[in-house]
């Protein structure tokens, strides 16, 4: 729903001068200030990534270094322990990519069912789903670990993927969205024509939900990409760490080992780039109005 802004000058000919230059500049300035506030730490990372280990703590914070620090950090990071950073990046992609796709699939069909059908147990299921998130992940982590260990799955990709698939927020959003965009009339018409429920779900339900699914995909991708505790606890083999955990271990090698600060900063910088790219790329496809709860009557 990307409504374009219409000035409607014809209707308000005499009054349109309300939007004077001043009243246009002030909002712009405030927004720019807001943008600056949000960008500053991100810019800092970009600048800090240009500093090699000898410069990181000795030079003025916001002045980038031109002494080859960026190249040094980049090459040493990618070389660290025979290129394990690439492995970590690949792992992040697997967990986030596969995890978000599966999560969206599960959430969407669940949301569709909860929105479009009335069946016994509907509310119980819905509210239990939501209630589950009240318990902090920190305490769920250990029981989840014990459980997966019983199933023999710890230290595998599945041990991170499976818990990542459940997204109560995703199911909640899917339900709202399905209720708003999937037409009951079309469904009824389809049933009268004798179409099966599964066929209907695919042809009538799926298509309008696609924009919402893309949004969910993005949200879930970011959440899994940035997740730390779950993979930290589940994975023992450091070749299966995602970037978040890998970078953490680089920074915390022990009181008697040097911290690889400048490499970690470079790693952080590299790790946020894909997400930024994803945002910019998927901008057109978001439909966050499903989150805001439609105001249309």
């Amino acid at each position, binding site marked *: 729903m990307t409504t374009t802004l*219409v*000035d*409607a000058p014809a209707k*308000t000919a005499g*009054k349109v001068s309300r939007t004077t230059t001043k009243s*246009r500049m002030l*909002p712009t300035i*405030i*927004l720019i200030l*807001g943008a600056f506030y*949000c960008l500053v*730490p*991100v810019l*800092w990372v970009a600048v800090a990534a240009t500093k090699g280990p000898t410069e990181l*703590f000795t030079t*003025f*914070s*916001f002045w980038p270094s031109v002494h080859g620090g960026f190249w040094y950090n980049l090459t040493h990071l990618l070389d660290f322990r025979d290129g394990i950073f690439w492995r970590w990046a690949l792992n992040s992609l697997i967990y986030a990519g596969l995890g978000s796709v599966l999560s969206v699939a*599960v959430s969407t*069909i*669940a949301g*569709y*069912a*909860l*929105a479009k*059908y009335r*069946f016994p147990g509907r509310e119980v*299921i819905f509210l*239990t*789903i939501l209630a*589950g998130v*009240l*318990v*902090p992940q*920190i*305490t*769920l982590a*250990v*029981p989840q670990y014990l*459980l997966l260990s019983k199933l023999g799955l710890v230290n595998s990709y599945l041990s991170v993927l*499976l*818990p990542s698939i*459940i997204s109560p927020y995703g199911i909640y959003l899917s339900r709202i969205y399905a209720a708003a965009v999937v037409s009951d009339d079309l469904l009824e018409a389809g049933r009268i024509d004798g179409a099966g*429920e599964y066929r209907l*779900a695919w042809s009538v339900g799926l298509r309008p939900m696609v924009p919402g699914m893309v949004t969910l995909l993005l949200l879930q991708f970011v959440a899994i990409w*940035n997740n730390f505790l779950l993979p930290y606890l589940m994975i023992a083999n450091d070749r299966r760490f995602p970037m978040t955990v890998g970078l*953490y271990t680089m920074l915390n090698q022990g009181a008697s080992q040097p911290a690889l600060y400048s490499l970690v900063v470079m790693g*952080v910088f590299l*790790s*946020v780039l894909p*997400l*930024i790219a994803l*945002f910019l790329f998927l901008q057109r496809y978001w439909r*966050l*109005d499903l*989150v*805001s*709860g*439609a*105001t249309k009557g």
Partner: protein
Amino acid sequence: MRRTSAPYVFVAPAVILLAIFLLVPIGYTVWLSLRASRVTGDGLGLRHEVFVAFDNYKSVLTAPDYVHGLLRMLGYGAIVVPVMLGLALSFALLLDVPRVRLTRFSRISIFLPYAVPGVIASLLWGFLYLPGVSPIRDAASALSLPVPDLLSPNTVLFSVANIGIWGGVGFNMIVLYTAVRGIPQELYDAARVDGASEVQIALRVKLPLITPALVMAGVFAIIATLQVYNEPATLAPLSDSISSSWVPLMAIYRDAFVNNDIYSAAAASVVLALGTLVVSAAALRVLQKRAFGLDR
């Protein structure tokens, strides 16, 4: 409606995964909260798990640092939620002012913090706060201004709150902005014809119409801030102002992972979860009518 098993099949994957990964661990957590590990025998004797009923709850609720942590968390929420939503609302409304410039740039920039993982964001702000490495200090001394100590006991709550606000403004702004964009144009036009200024339109026309979205965002924000953890935990080793139980989740983490006392951690988690339940149910009850428009 004809009988069909389709809805059950559709919700089955979610329900099964939920049962395994959410309900069973929750149940186990509650069970653990009623037990403890005690040592038998001599000096380096071995531990056994025993049933201790509500002892863990008693010690959690009477531990002064846990209670202080709870109060502090409420204080943190009282700062973060209004400020974050206030800023998000303001930015959203400002973006909708006719012919304002650079909207796309502002929108993307303000949303950007969402891409940064919580721990990383806290570390970045840590660098910006620590007097030794902070550019703020460099700037202040260049301008001969006194250098603020942003991690002192008096200021640390605001410094931590700032990180939470920074991270959440963008997302909420987009949510509210899309709500604003959903308002039919005709409503403003009528107001403009009547001579209302942009400010008046924003406050009298737009704001009331996006209240459902605002309320939902508010409830979610309350719940998220009650589970604050990343920001203070990352800053704690950098300064002397943050203790290991500064907010309840830090105490829970410390019990579970540092002190190897998963039992106290379980009890404290149950207390926190119930508290969150109470607060969010209360908030929702108060605002219920406006929040759920849709499929009731």
